[in-house]
C-alpha cells in the first residue's frame, strides 16, 4: 500500500473498523436559513524520511455515512405541524 522503503524501515499497519457517532446540539437556525452538514474523515500526517499509506478502497473497505438526522426541538413559532402535508 505504502510507497517503497528500505528493508530496515520500521512499519506499522493498523486496521480500523469502527463507528464514529457525531452530534451537534442546540443550534439556532433563522427562518429560511440553509444549513450545510459537513461529515468528514480527516487524514493528518507527517513524514520525516518515511511514507504513509491509507487504504479505504480494497474489498469491502471504505467509509459509509448513512445519513444525518436533524432533530427539530420545537416547531417554529406560529406554525402547526401537519405531517399529512409532507410527501
Amino acid at each position, binding site marked *: 500500500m505504502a510507497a517503497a522503503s528500505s528493508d530496515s524501515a520500521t512499519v506499522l499497519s493498523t486496521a480500523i473498523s469502527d463507528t464514529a457517532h457525531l452530534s451537534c446540539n442546540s443550534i439556532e437556525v433563522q427562518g429560511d436559513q440553509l444549513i450545510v452538514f459537513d461529515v468528514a474523515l480527516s487524514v493528518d500526517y507527517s513524514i520525516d524520511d518515511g511514507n504513509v499509506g491509507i487504504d479505504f478502497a480494497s474489498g469491502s473497505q471504505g467509509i459509509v455515512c448513512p*445519513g444525518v438526522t436533524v432533530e427539530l426541538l420545537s416547531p417554529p413559532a406560529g406554525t402547526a405541524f401537519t405531517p399529512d402535508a409532507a410527501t
Partner: protein
Amino acid sequence: MKHTKIDKARLKAAIEAIKGREGPDGPQLRLAQQARIAQFRRKLGKELRPLFAGARFDVGALDKALGRHQVELREALKKDTAKIGKAFAKAARDRERGMANTARAWRHIETKPLLTTLIPLTTPYLIYATPLGMLQDSHIEPWNNFAKFAYTNDQDTGFGAVVKFFFAWQNPSDYLAVINCETNLLINGIIEATAEQGWLASCSAFVELTAELTVYVGSLPPSTTRGPSFSGWPRSTPKAALHCSAVRATWNRKTSSGPIISRAATFPWKAINWSSSKSPAALMGGLTAAPLSWPSTPTSRAAGWPCILRLTGPCSGRHSP
C-alpha cells in the same frame, strides 16, 4: 408546516465556499511541529556521525553540536508558539460566536415543553475528497452513502487529506428554529506508516484519522464535534548503539462532546427562495429518486421516538425502522 425547496445553485455555491475554507489547523500544527523537531534531531545525528567515525570522541565538539541543536530547536519552537497562539486566538473568537448561537437557541426553547421532530437526511448533496484523484469510488443511496479512497505519500512533509459528505437542510418556516443533529461515520480501512532507520535521531511517519461533523449555519458560526481519532505512530528508539528502531502505536479516543465552535462561516449567500411542497431533504438530495418523509406524527423526546439511525456494526445494508 411549509416545505421548502433548496436552491441548488445556492447550495452548490455554499459548498464551494466551505471547500475553500481553512480548517482549525490543530492537528496539522501539531504534526508540523513534530516533524520540525524530528528534522532538527536528524540534522544533529548527521552532524554527530562523523565524530564517531574515528573512534575518538571529541567531547568538546559534541557539547558544541548539542548546544547548537538546542538553540535551533528553541528558536523553532518559539516561532511555532507564536503561530499556534494566533490560530488559537481565531478559534477562541469563533468559539465565542458559536456559544452565543447556542445561548440564543437555549433561550428560544427554555421552560417550554419539549416537542421534537426528527428529520432524516439520507442522501448527501455531494461526496467530495481532496487531494483530487484520491477518491476511487462513491455511491449515493438513501441510508447507504459510501466512499472508497486510497492515498500514499513519501514526501517529507505534513499535510492532510479529507473525504467529506455534504448534507443540507433548510428551515422550512419563516421562524427561528432550534435543532440538534447527529450522524454516524462507519470506517473500515487500513492505515500504514513507515519510518526509515535513523542515525541517533529518529525518522518518523505519523498518520491520524479523525471523524468530524461541522455544521455551517448560513452566516452564523458553525459547530464542530470530533469523533474517535485513530492514529499510528512508528518511530525510532535505540535498538543497538546509536541506531534506532521501534514501533509504538497509540489509539486516541475522543468522545463526542457538546458543540464546539471552531470557525466562522460567512457564506456568500444570504436569502434563500423556496416554494415547494416536497420534503426539503428529498429536494436537498436531488441525486436519487427515493422520497424522504417527515415523521408521521409529532413526538416528544420522552415518548421515545424510534431511533432513525443507530448503526453500530459494519454498514452494508439499509436501515429498516
